[in-house]
């Protein structure tokens, strides 16, 4: 199932609300990279409010997506992680999610803007 990616000003917003299969994950990554390139978006916010179970396979898909988006120049923030998901990921033992995160879409939006302006301020 296709995951919609919406543009809002200089950001892309997307919300994962389906059970992510391997195929879905690959399609999603392809779409994200193309959409960033096509729109020149400076940031990407991925909402995972609807995900109540995040295992190492999904964590890997999210990390890869973020890495790809960064390679084409977008700052990435994940938002809306359920408290139970956070507890489970920490219990599982490692830095499973290696992406900037925020409580909700509102904070995620602000954080992405902060990351973008910080990048612009960087010398060189």
């Amino acid at each position: 199932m296709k995951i919609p990616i919406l543009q809002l000003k200089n950001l892309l917003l997307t919300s994962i609300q389906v059970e992510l299969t391997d195929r879905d994950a690959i399609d999603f990554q392809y779409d994200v990279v193309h959409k960033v390139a096509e729109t020149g978006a400076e940031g990407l916010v991925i909402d995972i409010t609807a995900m109540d179970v995040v295992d190492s396979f999904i964590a890997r898909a999210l990390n890869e997506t973020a890495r790809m988006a960064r390679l084409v120049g977008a700052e990435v923030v994940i938002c809306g992680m359920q408290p139970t998901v956070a507890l489970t990921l920490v219990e599982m033992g490692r830095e499973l999610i290696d992406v900037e995160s925020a409580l909700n879409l509102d904070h995620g939006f602000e954080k992405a803007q902060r990351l973008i302006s910080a990048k612009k301020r960087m010398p060189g």
Partner: protein
Amino acid sequence: MIKHEQARHDNQPACLIRQFVVVRVTEEIHIAQAQRQAKALARAAGFRQVAVYQVATSVSELANNLFFHTTEGGRITITAIRQEGMIGLEVIAEDRGPGIPDVKLAMQDGFSANGGLGGGLPGVKRLMDEFEINSEVGLGTRIMVRRWQACR
């Protein structure tokens, strides 16, 4: 009448249930099915919310392994169990796949047989209270995990 039933329900919870489900994992959608069954049984057993999702995550991890690391898939059996004031869920994941050549290595954080993130099995071990793995190359793998909670 309704009140009475409600009260009984509250006082003698899930410890009385005896239930199990079997999910064959041969296609990717079965992973989500196994996960849903795990959630349903954990809820029925009266598990706390965090425990419900931690059991579901473990089942998801095991089901993913069955799908991605074997050619014919495997089977997940989830059973409600009890013991001395405790209620538990037992999850058995078994397959006739290639087997794990080095179980110790598979239990290390960051190890992955297929370029994945690794750490699936050690993660499951930490989420559950009991963890048992038997694997023989060429024959298959059987993983048994349990999570306990005191009867309320």
